């Protein structure tokens, strides 16, 4: 282990009152780099593994095809090489394509708690928000530097600070951007939106009644 040993996660275990989920202020641990732009959710979680009525097994299927060689044995894919990491470092337009929540579910169940990258596809990012996975968008150079750093020092600590919208590693602090709604949701522990929207059910019914097409 390097001197930059991972610090403990700052996930408070006690849910806030009226919510079912804990607040997430920081994610600390080690990194796993997956390089390349426009990595689609078919790569992250191949369609043939979507045939399940729960997400329970999805951790096994994250990047399933890319993690194996032609004979089906595990290769040197980062998810094989960086077991135990929780901060994923990616590039541009990560998670494009299919809306399948199976993709972030698979990454989360593999161990990912935060993703640092150049940009994220929208539905993927929404799904991360629903699951409490923090996404931090940084510049191209910073994303590549972080990936280089992780490859050079796999055991070194990395910390994503949701409140400050930064990632800290190698003695430096890099600024990035967590979408406002995701940031608020993570910090306040209200990233599960069902309960809060359910309190507005009467207003939703009123909107329903006001629309011209809802009495068909």
């Amino acid at each position, binding site marked *: 282990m390097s001197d930059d040993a991972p610090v403990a996660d700052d996930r408070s275990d006690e849910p806030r009152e009226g919510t079912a989920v804990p607040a997430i202020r920081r994610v600390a641990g080690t990194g796993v780099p997956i390089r*390349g*732009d*426009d990595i*689609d959710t*078919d*790569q992250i979680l*191949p*369609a*043939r593994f*979507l*045939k*399940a*009525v*729960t*997400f329970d097994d999805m951790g096994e299927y994250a990047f399933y*095809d890319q993690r194996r060689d032609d004979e089906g044995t595990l290769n040197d894919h980062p998810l094989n090489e960086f077991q135990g990491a929780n901060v994923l470092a990616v590039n*541009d*337009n990560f998670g*494009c*394509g*299919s*809306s*399948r*929540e199976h993709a*972030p579910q698979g990454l989360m169940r593999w161990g990912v708690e935060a993703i640092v990258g150049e*940009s994220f*596809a*929208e*539905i993927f990012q*929404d*799904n991360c928000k*629903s*699951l409490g996975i923090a996404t931090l968008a940084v510049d191209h150079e910073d994303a590549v530097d972080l990936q280089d750093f992780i490859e050079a020092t796999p055991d070194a600590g990395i910390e994503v600070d949701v409140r400050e919208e930064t990632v800290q590693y190698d003695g430096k602090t890099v600024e990035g951007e967590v*979408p*406002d*709604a995701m940031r*608020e*949701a993570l910090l*306040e522990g*209200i*990233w*599960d*939106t*069902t309960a*809060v*929207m*359910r309190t*507005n*059910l009467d*207003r*939703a*019914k009123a*909107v*329903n009644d*006001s*629309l*011209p*097409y*809802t009495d*068909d």
Partner: protein
Amino acid sequence: MSEGTLYDKVWERHKVADLPNGQDQLFIGLHLVHEVTSPQAFGMLRERDMEVAFPDRTVATTDHIVPTTSEGRERPLADERAEEMLTHLERNTEDAGIRFFGLDDDRQGIAHVVGPELGFVQPGMTVVCGDSHTSTHGAFGAIGMGIGTSQIRDVFATGSISADKKAVRRVEITGELGDGVGAKDVILHVIRELGVDGGVGHVYEYGGEAIRSLDMEGRLAVCNMSIEGGARAGYINPDETTYEYLEGRGFAPEGEAFEERKEYWESIRSDEDAEYDDVVEVDADGLAPQVSWGTNPEQVVGVDEPVPEPAETRDPEAAETAQAHTEVTPGETMAEHEVDVAFLGTCTNGRVADFREAARVLAGRAVDDDVRALAVPGSGTVKRTLEAEGIHRVFKDAGFQWREAGCSMCLAMNDDALEGDEVCASSSNRNYVGRQGSTEGRTHLMSPAMVAAAAVEGAVTDVREFDTADEVGSGSGSPVADAEVDG
């Protein structure tokens, strides 16, 4: 910030509340449900002891996992996991009182085909589905958005999603489309121009001469692939083409109610002086049929243009990897690139007009001996309409397999898959590595007419070089004229 666009107006009509996270709670007018992304959401509801709040605003069908051979559809399905998913959907929809078009209903089909053709989708609606191609429904002037499973739970429980309003980009498509060139070519060209991430953070409003001239099937194909361009939603302002399509569809209003509703539809059109966050112009004049050469949907060229050198592309490294995978040669055109499989169908191009277009190319011709050709109608309604017109005979006579409705080889969640390193001419929307069921398989995206031409020649071919039939079948069929609807 945009102002006075259809997107602004529809958003405002559907806004329920400001949420503590800074987002809006947006009411959902139509929730389309299928078997792959919903069972987990129904499970979450049960855990919380909640019920579906607006079952009347919810419509379900089964499409992703269903076999497309008639024998294969006998229950229980041979694939136990597929059977389990279907059984869950049947039980969940029955318990919740949600209308369901299952395998025993001849209107079953792909959610994004069924919703529009039966009249569920109308202008000025908000439409969601646990499927990224929900952008399709923007063709009516609706806001259609793909969502994840946790958001499906939100919609079940509250009839709403928590969402940020996006920037609105007007995509003005100018010029006139020539013979043999259509909506699919237009949208592939747009994605090539604007990039697969060009639409992130944006909603696309498509307009201009080339869009106005498209029929509804063409507009559905354009909006369908907004997501391939990174835009979660894309829409076209409703006009007479939209209203004519809707009139007489079972779940659309009728008679006086239809005329009244039209006032709402007209009112939500973007104002003449609407303000956009961004306006881009894409020239489609004299556009050639488009074909994808790589492994993402911006890696596209005209069929008569050379495949670019990696260095000429936006992402040279990705282009090089893609070209190694597809075994295409920079400097050469895609024409004469051999194919093993021809696949017609999907939520992009699985509608009656798409099959008519392909049939005009196929009439009197035969599929190449070395090509495996599948025609998979997007819905039972599409299939029966084509059969009533006799168009299915063109496909069967040419050597296409004539299948039952489903997503099929677009993502190969059933038995319809590429094998080994097969090369597929496909009317689908994604050419990602492994998408069609084989990690070595190669997908080339193109229009239905181009797929038909490739099937005949055994290689990618410029369909403009084909003499096409003026009309095929009886030509009388309206997709819903024969469909029994009980709206």
